[in-house]
């Protein structure tokens, strides 16, 4: 070993792996820079020829178009393109948030059903997963929107849903909870309860308090705080039921057919993928683990809580997050049915009106990238913490 350098044959300069590595990388970087500069010059020349200004000056110009669903204040006459961007982003986040919650419920139900000992249930769930996963999402969205929701009866013959809702070709109307002015207080209390819950979970993880106590306290806080706040602030909590009037439906929670179709399609589609993730996770728990738990005399519920779920979740959560990301990215297919999401408003209408393709496509991609990268960052931390500490 000591005389190894002496016995190494003389390597020609260009054959030395280190030299070649540096040369190749320098070549790559040079090529990339050349391509970037060339593309920039070409784009600048093309833009000048087409008389398109560049930059974000359009951001503060009035938009002048209507948006069918706005979660934040927006008016076609006074609002700017920038405001339209935020409206679209809020609509995208709304679909993503509601879709993720519903798809998780559907996915876990179907995933557990696939492992049912009941032959019919297991095969029904398997059929659902196969059918939904093998048909493109765009087709499913078009089906829900054009063939189901647009074909619903007119508002005069609205379908009465159990619980006081209405469904017609103008949308879905559900009962809403009204806090009679105390909504902000209740919301704040709910936020505080969630914060306390997180703190309790952290404390329980570190072994400061018993897990059972933490769970009980968290549940009590989650229910007690908002209810208490509502009582203390004297808010009149009441349900507002949608009322059929002569020309429209008043009151309650109104959802446009586009939103309903998009949510239905996304939830059913992503639910099928989540079901496979859940099934894989549950199957990954070895049979011996369950048998050992039974041998120790653990009840079925305890086996589930203490043995199966902790091990299955370790396997389920990483692919589950990527399904959540897929749902968020797939919500961009809203373009197909005209739901005003980020892509439809910004990459569609705003791009057509301003023609500033580079800036708009870049901003849209940046939004999705930030969402994806943040999630993967959090996931990496989670994975590092959850990785099995092997001897």
């Amino acid at each position, binding site marked *: 070993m000591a005389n190894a350098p002496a016995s190494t044959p003389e390597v020609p300069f260009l054959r030395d792996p280190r030299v070649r590595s540096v040369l190749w990388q320098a070549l790559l970087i040079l090529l990339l820079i050349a391509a970037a500069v060339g593309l920039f010059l070409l784009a600048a020349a093309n833009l000048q020829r087409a008389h398109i200004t560049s930059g974000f000056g359009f951001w503060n110009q009035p938009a002048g178009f209507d948006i069918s669903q706005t979660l934040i204040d927006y008016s076609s006459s006074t609002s700017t393109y920038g405001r339209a961007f935020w409206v679209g982003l809020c609509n995208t986040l709304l679909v993503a948030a509601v879709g993720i919650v519903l798809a998780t419920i559907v996915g876990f139900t179907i995933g557990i059903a696939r492992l049912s000992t009941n032959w019919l249930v297991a095969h029904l769930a398997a059929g659902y997963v196969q*059918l939904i996963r093998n048909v493109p999402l765009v087709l499913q969205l078009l089906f829900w929107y054009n063939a189901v929701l647009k074909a619903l009866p007119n508002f005069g013959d609205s379908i009465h849903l159990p619980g006081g809702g209405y469904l017609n070709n103008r949308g879905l109307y559900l009962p809403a909870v009204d806090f009679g002015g105390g909504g902000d207080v209740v919301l704040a209390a709910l936020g505080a309860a969630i914060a306390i819950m997180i703190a309790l979970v952290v404390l329980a993880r570190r072994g400061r308090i018993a897990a059972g106590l933490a769970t009980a306290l968290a549940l009590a806080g989650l229910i007690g705080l908002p209810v208490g706040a509502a009582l203390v602030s004297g808010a009149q909590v009441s349900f507002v039921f949608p009322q059929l009037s002569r020309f429209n439906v008043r009151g309650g929670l109104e959802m446009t057919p586009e939103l309903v179709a998009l949510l239905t399609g996304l939830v059913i589609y992503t639910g099928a993928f989540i079901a496979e993730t859940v099934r894989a996770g549950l199957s990954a728990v070895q049979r011996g683990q369950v048998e050992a738990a039974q041998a120790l005399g653990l009840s079925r519920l305890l086996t589930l809580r203490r043995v199966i779920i902790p091990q299955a979740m370790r396997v389920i959560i990483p692919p589950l997050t990527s399904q959540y990301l897929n749902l968020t990215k797939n919500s961009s297919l809203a373009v197909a049915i005209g739901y005003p999401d980020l892509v439809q408003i910004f990459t569609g209408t705003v791009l057509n009106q301003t023609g500033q393709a580079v800036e708009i496509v870049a901003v849209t991609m940046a939004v999705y990238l930030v969402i994806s990268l943040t999630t993967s960052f959090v996931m990496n931390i989670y994975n590092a913490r959850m990785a099995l500490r092997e001897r």
Partner: protein
Amino acid sequence: MSSVAAIGTEHRLVFVRTAPAPSLPPPFASTGVIGWTRANLFGTPFNAVMTVLVVLLFIWVVPPLVRFLLVDAVWTGSDRQACLATVAHPEVGACWAFVREHLAYFTYGSYPIDGRWRVDIFFAMLAVGMGWLLWLNAPHRGLGALYFFGIFPIVSFFLLYGLPALGLEIVDTSRWGGLMVTVVVAAVGIVFSLPLGILLALGRRSHMPALKTVSVVFIEFVRGVPLVTVLFMASVMLPLFLPPAWSPDKLVRALVGVALFSSAYMAEVVRAGLQAIPRGQWEAASALGLGYWQTLRFVVLPPALRITIPNILNTYVGLFKDTTLVFFVGIYDFLKTIEAAREDPTWATPVTSVSGYAFAALFYFTCCYSMSRYATSIERRLGRSERR
């Protein structure tokens, strides 16, 4: 022991069994149909309730569905009159006559009628190539790969686009449509994504920091954004970055978008396969004096790709479903032709949309399901060889 002996000596034995008693059949209720039913459908009270619920669901859903799709369906007719509810036929099912009438449009789009034989030859060539590659015991599969990834794309391009020197007149891509475009987009994605994906995966695992960074940034960027935005980027930004003289046409832009998008996903699939190859394989190849590309060609890639085949095929299934997105950038793929025909006023009936979508769903389901079944069978086959 002693008592047996005692009894024996007194000759008071009445019965000694010399052969085992014949085994009785299992209880009637635990075998056959009844046993299976008890075990799989009515094992617990909860299971029994679920079984009843599922059966009720079937009774509620299946008969109307069969009636709509088959019994009440309209199979022949030349316009909307055939599919409208009348006093004589108050119940109208799916309007298959509409699908039949538009079948040629769904297949060829607006491709010139006297040139459709060219598309037919393209389909036949594709079928030959796919059969060659997918049939695992086919002769000369290496030649098949060369045909599919080399000869077939070039010949198809001239066949479909045209080659005036051979008397094939040019057909502009704006007239392409239907199944043909779906197949072209999928085939381009399939043919380009694997080589690009392998290169990206190798780049990501490279020891050269610059190369690694470029690969990681590209892969994570593309995987982090929806395909729609990639297609929009390709369709509105590509013309900006090219000299006006060679501004690519709409279809080419979408193809570039699809190829880049799927190669990023393919890169991750291939990377997983590369990671499964132990480092010792590389070291052994180095010790034998093989260079980097020789190691890849003879030692690392063959097993890495073989274990990745099921995942590659599943990525192709995803890619095939994703081809439907090209209709956002104004390309008349299979789904878009159905969308367009659906709005044809001569066929405007309440059941037209459902019939069109049902047909499309059947088509996509058949393609994707058979592909994923094939992937599963390969996986099982690989698993068998692993166990041996």
